[in-house]
């Protein structure tokens, strides 16, 4: 058995795992930071909504769709100049985060928009009848009501980001995906491949169960 896993270097695996977690955490943070307001804006400016702005909604939609239609592997390469401008490097964890955020933000924003649309319109009407400002309606009524949906959206986005981090390995980002490609694939070290895949699988399972638990915790229906 030990013979079979002879290529597996625990130190190397550990470093790659930490890199993956750093990429995931960093990119998820910025994705939520940018995606949540973008999702709210998409919702508010959408058809028949409180702040309907046809032109702005169409512009945002085209932008979001454009970024989403770009395969992530292409986005990674296309963004290299911008990434260097932002972080000073296109390599490592720092170099991976800008394309990860650019790839996941539009996706997450659409999920937020959908979660907000799920909120009963009566809630908006009741808030308006109470004399709430648009900001109050969003912060005090819509976001709390959509919280389970938004948590589910964060979970799905996190899992998507895990697979994106693996792809980022192609352009020298490091992490478990990088390990799988460089050793597992290019050097035919099947044992490394198995270990990295197993670790990615465990990571996704953990993320999903944390997300599910939070959704249940915050659902009052």
């Amino acid at each position, binding site marked *: 058995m030990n013979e079979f896993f002879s290529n597996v270097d625990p130190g190397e695996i550990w470093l790659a795992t930490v890199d993956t977690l750093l990429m995931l955490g960093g990119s998820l943070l910025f994705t939520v930071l940018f995606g949540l307001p973008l999702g709210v804006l998409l919702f508010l400016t959408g058809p028949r909504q409180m702040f309907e702005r046809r032109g702005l909604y169409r512009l945002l939609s085209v932008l979001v769709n454009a970024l989403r239609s770009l395969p992530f592997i292409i986005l990674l390469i296309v963004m290299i100049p911008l990434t260097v401008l932002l972080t000073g490097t296109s390599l490592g964890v720092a170099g991976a985060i800008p394309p990860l955020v650019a790839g996941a933000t539009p996706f997450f924003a659409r999920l937020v928009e959908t979660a907000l649309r799920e909120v*009963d319109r*009566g*809630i908006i*009407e*009741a*808030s*308006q*009848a*109470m*004399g*709430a*400002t648009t900001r*109050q309606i969003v912060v*005090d*009524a819509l976001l*709390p*009501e959509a*919280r389970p949906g938004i948590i589910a959206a964060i979970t799905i986005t996190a899992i998507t980001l895990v697979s994106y981090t693996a792809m980022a390995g192609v352009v020298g980002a490091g992490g478990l995906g990088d390990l799988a490609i460089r050793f597992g694939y290019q050097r035919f070290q099947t044992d490394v491949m198995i270990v990295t895949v197993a670790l990615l699988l465990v990571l996704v399972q953990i993320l999903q169960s944390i997300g599910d638990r939070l959704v249940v915790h*915050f659902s*009052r*229906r």
Partner: protein
Amino acid sequence: MSAVRAGKLGAFFFRPQPESSSRARDVIELRQAGKTYRVDGRDIPALQPTDLRVAGGEIFGLIGHSGAGKSTLLRLINRLEEPSAGRIVVDGEDVTALDAAGLRAFRRRVGMIFQHFNLLSSKTVADNIAMPLQLAGSLGRRQIAERVDGLLARVGLEAHAGKYPAQLSGGQKQRVGIARALATEPKILLCDEATSALDPQTTAQVLQLLDGINRELGLTIVLITHEMDVIRRVCDRVAVMDAGRIVELGPVGDVFLHPQHPTTRRFVLEAEQIDEHEQRADFAHVAGRIVRLTFRGEATYAPLLGSVARDTGVDFSILAGRIDHIKDTPYGQLTLALIGGDIDAAQRRLAEAEVHLEVLRA
């Protein structure tokens, strides 16, 4: 066709009607207010230009089938619906002229409850009730808690403060809705089909609560419904709506007992579960003059029929009858067949006794 009445008959029998008081006490006034939706370049009228006055302290009912425009009219009052024509004056203030900030401040003085309650599922009962106060931001945390406690007691939900709406029954949810609507101590309460999602027993309890609030707080209530029974139980005056206009308006007693417009008649028959055709077929077999007597107030319980029959020699048989209440006023409606004796004298005696008499068949 319009049958707007002055309500003199009602004022005679019922407790003093708000309508007879001076115009200055009108709390809500619509002046040629109307609403037209633009869909695909075409104008679809939801509410024809309408005049309406609601007096302070009355419970005013709007009844109509879905699409009659009652929901639009109700939402014009707090401008949840922007009027496309006319003016709306509430408490002396021209609501149509308010800017966004003025409108928000105005809406805090008008409570509203909804058919589907529209409570926040993510907040507890107490937090739902506190919400209008937190949005207004003028009270401190302790004052808000005190006010919420008082409101919970008023609607009888003290034991449920920490629960979430999903844990409550429909009637309890509407009580939370009522408490929330009263949180900012408004002068006006708008009720949007507030009992339509509730069973009959719960409906009665919620109506009782609204009636109590109206009496104790002097709150003006405007409610919309498609059930005549809701109007009969709590309203002082009613407007019947059909196809975007008010077709009949007056004190509930007048409109309920002597409906003029076909739409009103349908609502009343629905409420009393009378099939007009069936009734006419039944009467065909009966001899004599058929009249319908309507008693109101104390006359309902007076031993009138017996003495008239004795004095005039008229025999009568009761074909249909109902004794009930319109709000607090008892009323009776009897359909009789009069046979033999001096029928005209009997009719005169009944008319003198403050009984409304209608000849159904001579």
